[in-house]
């Protein structure tokens, strides 16, 4: 079976800074979360998968085509939906007009069919009643949904979403989860986020990146399993812990190597994530 996304030894540098370092990654159909701190290289990776950026070295196969080749790139773009970190919607356009413009860029040339598709995606993201409001008059969360609507145009086989839940309130995030849950099962979704709860709720698979490298790739349950038996509560932050923080109950939750007899608590993906990334970045430590 051809995997929707297969990267091999992909690297990218910007003005002397390595954004991606020999990334090798395979994404099957379904939702894959991309976790990592700021500067991890998530957005660069997404841009390469979305054909908006070419890698300096390495090879990429996206939807069975080579993005380095003009024909391959076009074939990918015809089956791709991409939401950049900022939605990029023009303030002076209405939500409908902006999504309609992107639909034209996606080669939807039949006006009636295109308008029906634009109405459909705006309904999907819950903006059907705001379709004719100017983008600049919409809230940040609504603008994000306008961006998501354009990404959903034409039922893409690959959805690349860069921090899609930023700016969404809890209800909107719930709706976003419903949107992803409603996608056909053969759709490949790659979404980057800072929120481990989004990954836990949405993504059967997860990739953790830091400093341009992939630190973990596998099932989300596997990320949680990494931290199993390594999360414990104590009255005070444990100096031996890799990461510690205060819980709402006033206790200190520690992640790392627990002392004998520690009060262990169940581990989640966020604990696995912290365990992996804190090894590379002491800045993640929260006392």
């Amino acid at each position, binding site marked *: 079976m051809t995997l929707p996304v297969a990267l091999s030894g992909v690297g990218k540098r910007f003005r002397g800074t390595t954004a991606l370092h020999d990334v090798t990654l395979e994404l099957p159909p379904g939702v894959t979360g991309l976790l990592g701190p700021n500067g991890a290289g998530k957005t660069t990776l997404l841009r390469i998968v*979305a054909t908006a950026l070419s890698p300096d070295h390495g090879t990429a196969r996206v939807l069975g085509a080579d993005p380095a080749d003009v024909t391959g790139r076009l074939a990918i*773009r015809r089956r791709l939906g*991409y939401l950049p970190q900022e939605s*990029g919607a023009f303030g002076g356009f209405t939500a409908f007009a902006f999504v309609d413009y992107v639909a034209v860029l996606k*080669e939807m040339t*039949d006006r009636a069919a*295109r308008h029906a598709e634009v109405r459909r995606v705006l309904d999907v993201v819950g903006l059907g009643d705001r379709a004719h409001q100017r983008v600049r008059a919409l809230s940040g969360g609504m603008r994000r949904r306008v961006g998501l609507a354009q990404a959903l145009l034409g039922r893409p086989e690959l959805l690349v979403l860069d921090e899609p839940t930023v700016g969404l309130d809890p209800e909107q995030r719930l709706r976003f989860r419903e949107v992803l849950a409603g996608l056909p099962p053969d759709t490949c979704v790659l979404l980057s986020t800072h929120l481990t709860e989004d990954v836990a709720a949405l993504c059967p698979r997860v990739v953790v990146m830091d400093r341009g490298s992939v630190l973990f790739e596998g099932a989300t349950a596997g990320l949680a399993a990494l931290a199993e038996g390594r999360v414990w509560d104590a009255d005070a932050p444990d100096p031996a812990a890799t990461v510690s923080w205060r819980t709402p109950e006033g206790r200190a939750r520690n992640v790392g190597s627990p002392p004998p007899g520690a009060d262990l608590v169940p581990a989640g993906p966020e604990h696995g994530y912290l365990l992996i990334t804190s090894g590379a970045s002491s800045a993640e430590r929260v006392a």
Partner: protein
Amino acid sequence: MTALLAAPPAVVGRGTVRALAAAEIRHAARSPLIWAGVAFSVALAGWADTGSGTGGGFTEPGSIDNGYAVWEYPVMPLALAAFVVANGAALRERPTPTAELFASTPARAWERTVGLLAAAVVPAVLALLVLTGQYLSVVAVGGAVLGEDRWTDTFDPAPLEMLGGPLAIGCSFVAGVAVARVVRSRAAGAVLGFVGWAAFFGMYYNWLYAPFGLFAVTRSSVLATNLGLHPSAAQLAAHEAVQPPGGFVHEYLALDRVLSFYGMHLVYVGGVTLGLAGIALARSGRDVRTRRVLVAGLVLVVLGLAGELLTPVGDLGVGKPL
């Protein structure tokens, strides 16, 4: 939710450029700035027509820079509006995320630019409507008067003269796109736009003189020939109209409406417009058709200028009215 997410019918197809052009034309036609330009142009046409702005209007005898000689100038505000709207539309993708979003779609930057250039038809058609209104008002009062005293002639503007204004406005729109593709900054685009507009339209009187009159974006079909201070009766009789000394005119000035010259000037402006379109396309990625557009523009510019220079009338003396 499931019903909403059902796969849409296959809507992907060819004709993206046509669809882009239609979208850009709709956006330009709905631009408040374009319509403000139209309103100011209509007001300026009325101002010129009544003589408030030209010291005589189209139906009164007047000097070289009055009335008929400034036939196309009421479209000046529309020229500025066209540039600004085109420049803004071409810079929509200026924020990086938007550029990335566009880059991830099948439509190439080249095709987006073609679509945008097609929208030049909107302000051009509106300019034609403004000039048509001006034409009807001039015809209704019996035509425009050229010359003064005993040497006047009255004309109805020719159909060819209806094309200069729209072409100049189209050129202004295309220039807005080209500048955006070369200088990818809204602020720089605005400054360049205003400076360009002031130079080519606002200070129109500079383009009434040789050699600038050959290169103007907009000019009249009237050619002036300097007859000196003491022209013979034969010299005076050889021309359609004469402007005697007075005001800005220091010697007898023969005035002739030369449509062949004007036609060649339109070829020149058409070439400039195509050349600017070629620059915009060249800055929008590779496509074999770009070179054809650039070459066609260059050929038209050369042909137009050669045609103007070969017209055996007019005064090409530097600083002389042309």
